[in-house]
């Protein structure tokens, strides 16, 4: 552990062309891609040319960033001296409506990540992308990929067709707990619902900033439905969620729970405690105040040193320069954020994991 200098818990390989998935698709779906002219499944959550989607100095000649393991190695692992980086591919397979097609594309994407990234650099790890279009398919995909220990987490998008905590989603939580894999909830939507409770917003800025609302609703749902009463060991990592909304959200949710907890008797302790025990958050996009003293205050509001995990969110353009940790975050937390918290969260990154 002492040789590990940093673990980047959220990087995004990009798939520049759907044809790259063809070798990983069964024949029927390969033919479908060609005969039906399925040209792209890229998601509107990250319009390919939007400034946020990739920092200019990280884009290649084709406009895409992070398309190969070599680019990730040079721009993430070497630059930030990261011993590991966890690949969370955001290609929009979650948006597909046909559930059989969704299964095929999820399998292909996981296999593409395995062969093009994990097999090419020993420092890379990945999340299993799961087809929530059909919960049985989702569990099947988790079990298929989990045998490869370089898959360290299960990843779903923040905004789902129905709130994530709903009971029909529980088979994936059961699988996650059984396999010792955290559930990573990443910013994004399958766009079955508008991204705000006021419908479809005018601007992409509203779409992206509404992710923080999505995370709050999702945390509320997971706790209120009783997921942690049923699966107390389940770990949840909020990926690209932002950080500073969490404390005030917990004030509110915990207070409401104190007043109305008769409705959810299985929630037998404060949501704030459950979140501190079972939830972790990645660092970027760090949405802090401009003054470092205020940053220190808001970090103090988290009331835990264990919750933040280092992430660059590469290649998303969340910051300029090369500093790994934003200004104002106390020195004493650096090692926790960069190494210790990620290792405590991702069992499979440990040289001697608790669960073989």
């Amino acid at each position: 552990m002492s040789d590990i200098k940093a673990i980047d818990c959220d990087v995004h390989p990009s798939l520049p062309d759907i044809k790259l998935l063809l070798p990983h698709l069964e024949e029927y779906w390969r033919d479908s891609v060609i005969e039906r002219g399925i040209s792209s499944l890229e998601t509107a959550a990250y319009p390919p040319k939007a400034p946020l989607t990739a920092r200019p100095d990280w884009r290649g000649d084709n406009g895409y960033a992070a398309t190969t393991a070599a680019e990730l190695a040079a721009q993430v692992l070497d630059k930030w001296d990261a011993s590991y980086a966890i690949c969370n591919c955001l290609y929009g397979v979650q948006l597909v409506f046909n559930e059989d097609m969704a299964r095929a594309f999820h399998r292909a994407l996981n296999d593409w990540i395995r062969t093009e990234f994990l097999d090419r650099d020993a420092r890379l790890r990945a999340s299993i992308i799961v087809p929530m279009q059909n919960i049985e398919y989702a569990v099947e995909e988790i079990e298929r990929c989990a045998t490869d220990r370089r898959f360290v987490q299960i990843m779903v998008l923040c905004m789902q067709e129905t709130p994530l905590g709903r009971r029909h989603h529980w088979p994936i939580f059961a699988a996650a707990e059984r396999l010792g894999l955290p559930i990573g909830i990443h910013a994004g939507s399958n766009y079955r619902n508008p991204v705000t409770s006021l419908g479809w917003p005018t601007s992409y800025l509203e779409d992206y900033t509404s992710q923080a609302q999505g995370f709050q609703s999702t945390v509320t749902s997971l706790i209120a439905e009783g997921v942690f009463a049923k699966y107390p060991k389940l770990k949840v990592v909020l990926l690209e969620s932002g950080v500073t909304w969490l404390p005030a959200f917990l004030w509110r949710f915990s207070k409401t729970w104190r007043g109305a907890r008769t409705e959810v008797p299985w929630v037998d302790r404060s949501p704030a405690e459950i979140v501190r025990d079972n939830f972790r958050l990645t660092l970027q996009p760090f949405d802090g105040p401009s003054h470092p003293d205020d940053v220190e205050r808001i970090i103090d509001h988290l009331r835990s040193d264990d919750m933040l995990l280092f992430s660059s969110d590469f290649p998303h353009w969340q910051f300029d320069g090369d500093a790994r940790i934003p200004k104002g975050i106390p020195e004493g937390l650096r090692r926790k954020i960069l190494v210790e918290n990620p290792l405590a969260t991702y069992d499979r990154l440990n040289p001697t994991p608790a669960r073989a």
Partner: protein
Amino acid sequence: MNMEVRQPLRAQKTRYGIVDCDIHPKLLMEDFRAHLSNQWWSHLQTYGFRPRHGFAKTYPMPKITPQAARRDAWPPTGGLPGSDLSFMREQLLDLYDMDYGIMNPLTPTGQGDQNPEFSAAMSFASNEVQLAKWSGPEKRLKASVVVPYEHPEAAQVEIKRRAGDKRFAQVFMLSRIAEAHGRRRYWPIYQAAVEAGLPVGIHAFGYSGWPLTNSGWPSFYIEEVTEHAIGQAAVVASMIFEGLFERYRDLKVVLIECGFGWLPALGWRLDKHWERMRDEVPHVRRPPSEYLREHFWVSTQPMEEAEDPDHVIDAMRWIGFDRILFATDYPHWDFDDPFVALPPSLTEEQRLAIYGGNAKKLYGLA
């Protein structure tokens, strides 16, 4: 149990000059009769309300108490909580020696009804009932201009009708409406509010026709209540990113019953991403947090309760002590008692500003 039993025994040593910015008078159906045409009265009797959800007589999420009310707020004379002026005086206005109360009438005002003309008729009637039954006999109570926001032209007419009438303190909208509040269709409402010199109060609640969360409908009331704060962030983001405050520089917005702790983090987040992608919204000329600081006020209830009370003070400082308005939410179950709700370490000056000073300035109350 949510038992709230207040005894009128507290000795008043200091006058706090409290302005309660969120009181819910219960307007009674029979009071509407005199202010609705025969046709709309008959419509109300026959078809009732159709408020963009499926329940004919009640709400999608059952409340945690009957009428979402304090158990002790049922008037001894009978009737619904919040329906009896003399009992409201006894339990609220006199007990806490309040200077003013701002009335925010909820159901049955017809706001957000699927029939916009009916909503317009109900809004007019709601405003008449507030005057006749409440702010007429009780000068401390100020009315809110209920508007049929899904029929903005009619809303504009209603605001113009009430402009200059000092018995009205603000224009009243709900937080969950058919489109985000900054969208063009609602601009006539803001135009009229600015012309009338009235702030726009946006109170948690209502039905937009969209699911409560961006992952669809949740299961529990506890989620709905938590969502009031979460959803309000989209309201604020829309108003700022649509450039509303460049267009209406005197527009003042009051966020009611959605807490306030979330506001600083929202400002930081909006600033961060606006900085990166401001070319998408060229009409937004300044960092979002600046509009937030200049154009928005928040009401306190339900008062934020952090495990460390000083964290709430941080949030208040980031928002601005001059922007925070005290509110009880009487007669609802999550009522905040003016004597115990505020964090103990506020200075006397901050306390007085929050209790009433800020509201008096904002609403032009003497």
